[in-house]
């Protein structure tokens, strides 16, 4: 069998996937009273118990190693409900990963990255992903969610590290907030359809990032994945190459596909890289060189 992965020296260490299990977030420190609001429900779910709260939506958090979700619902006379949800993940990297699922711009009003809307604030800090929302925007509820987001931000004492693999992303032409960090194969198709199965053997020990480059009408996608060892990276590369572009070879590493876009895949040490949907060979080569120089 012909493996044509481009194997280049491995120069970086493995990203740490899971930090030690965190201590419980002090949810009891959330205020019982918040202006005219008071706590009416306390939320506390561990692992798959989250199904009881959000059923299938829980899978997103579970795919990033959810430890628990705690929070409160606040109500007041004639006031729209305010809900606080604090998702405690196994690591800061995973909290960041959940954050990259929902963010579409870069803001830093809360925590280590946040998105603020009149009805909804979410942010990540250390190993926590936090959402504060209201059913309806009125001045009191908007003020309440801003206050609660600020309070929780201050209550989380330390900052967390972002996944090391995102440092491998070339900066040039990368869309602001245009990348997703994950280690469950379901998210492989987040930006474009790649395969309806786990074509590169992503699992909980694999760090992956999918990134957007260039304008909407000429967009390239860069996929990077760091495996626990070089053999796994090679196996994933071989599988993707054989299923996706069997004509790819060492002599011809960039392949033009039927829709006139370009593709390539390679490995370096325990890392895999792949470019999808590039609009010319030149763009593919340029992104490839930028990526491999950072890997």
């Amino acid at each position, binding site marked *: 069998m012909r493996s044509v992965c481009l194997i280049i020296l491995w120069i970086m260490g493995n990203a740490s996937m899971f930090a030690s299990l965190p201590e419980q977030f002090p949810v009891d420190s959330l205020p019982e009273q918040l202006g005219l609001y008071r706590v009416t429900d306390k939320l506390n779910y561990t692992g798959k118990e989250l199904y009881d709260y959000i059923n299938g939506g829980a899978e997103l958090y579970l795919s990033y190693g959810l430890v628990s979700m705690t929070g409160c619902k606040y109500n007041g006379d004639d006031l729209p409900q305010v809900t606080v949800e604090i998702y405690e993940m196994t690591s800061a990297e995973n909290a960041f990963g959940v954050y990259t699922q929902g963010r579409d711009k870069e803001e830093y009003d809360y925590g280590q990255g946040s998105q603020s809307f009149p009805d909804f604030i979410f942010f990540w800090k250390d190993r926590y992903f936090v959402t504060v929302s209201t059913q309806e925007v009125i001045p009191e509820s908007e003020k309440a969610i801003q206050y609660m987001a600020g309070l929780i931000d201050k209550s989380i004492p330390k900052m967390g590290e972002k996944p090391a693999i995102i440092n491998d992303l070339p900066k040039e032409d990368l869309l602001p907030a245009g990348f997703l960090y994950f280690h469950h194969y*379901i998210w492989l198709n987040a930006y474009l359809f790649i395969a309806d199965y786990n074509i590169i053997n992503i699992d909980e020990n694999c760090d992956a990032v999918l990134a957007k480059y260039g304008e909407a009408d000429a967009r390239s996608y860069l996929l990077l994945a760091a495996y626990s060892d070089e053999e796994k990276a090679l196996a994933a590369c071989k599988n993707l190459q054989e299923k996706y572009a069997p004509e790819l070879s060492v002599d011809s590493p960039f392949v033009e596909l039927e829709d006139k876009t370009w593709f390539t895949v390679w490995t370096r040490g325990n890392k895999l890289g792949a470019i999808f949907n590039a*609009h010319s060979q030149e763009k593919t080569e340029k992104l490839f060189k930028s990526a491999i120089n950072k890997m």
Partner: protein
Amino acid sequence: MEKLITRRDLLKKTALMAVGGTLLLNRPVNAWAWGTEEGTKSKVVLIRNRQLFAGGNQPDSGIAGQMLDEAVRTLTGKSNTKEAWASIVKPADIVGIKTNVWDKFPTPIVMNDLLKERVLQAGVNETNVSVNDRGVKDDPIFKNATALINVRPMRTHAWSGVGSCIKNYIMFSPQPSSYHDDSCASLAALYELPIVKGKTRLHVLVLFNPLFHHRTPQDASEEYMWKYSGLIVGFDPVAVDSVGLRILQGKRNAFFQEDKPLNPPAKHIELADTRYHLGTADPAKIELVKLGWDEESFV
């Protein structure tokens, strides 16, 4: 054995695909018919009325009723509303109306009420009708139902891609989470459960103000709803969902001004066709009848 599919497979099959073109399940529209045979088309009716929200943020119940009746007449081929509903439920039926009560984006109450009213007008005894969602497994009407009507709003979903008619039956499962694997790929198997099998008479996908995007699983912001003012009705839940999916995807691409595929893709709709043979997801095999307002219909 089921074929595993890559983007390249689809590109080979659909060499005419335009980059950035309309995608269904993040795929070219004309790539749908994997493993399916030529056959009769599934009829689906899409009806819209731009006056539905003319009075404010709540749908006008009179207009909603007119839309429902016209859609059902068209679907059944009956010129008379009474005959149309009589062809769907019989006076002797025990009818469960499976709604959706997710507090952030439930089935509009007006639709529950209209469907119950139409069932009663068809001669069904009021004691033999129930509207329920999370309690269906313990509801004596649903447990003894001879007929089901499936009604829910269309929205994006953080794990299954979309929440639409096929997924609405997950509450019939003794263990809903057992259908979560592979982004809810096996949802169509719900239709084999004894409490459900062969009983559904009508699927109503409500697109009054569909939710086309979410930021977190619990998010249902009005910022990502739009007054599409539509209803989709059909007998084939896969075809109904397939049409709804195209509309949602069209809106996402228009709103974000780029290809914005559902994340994750709504894989279960295609598999409902190709793996479970519950109906057809292939647009070429769907007879879509469009009634009323057509501006930015996305299909």
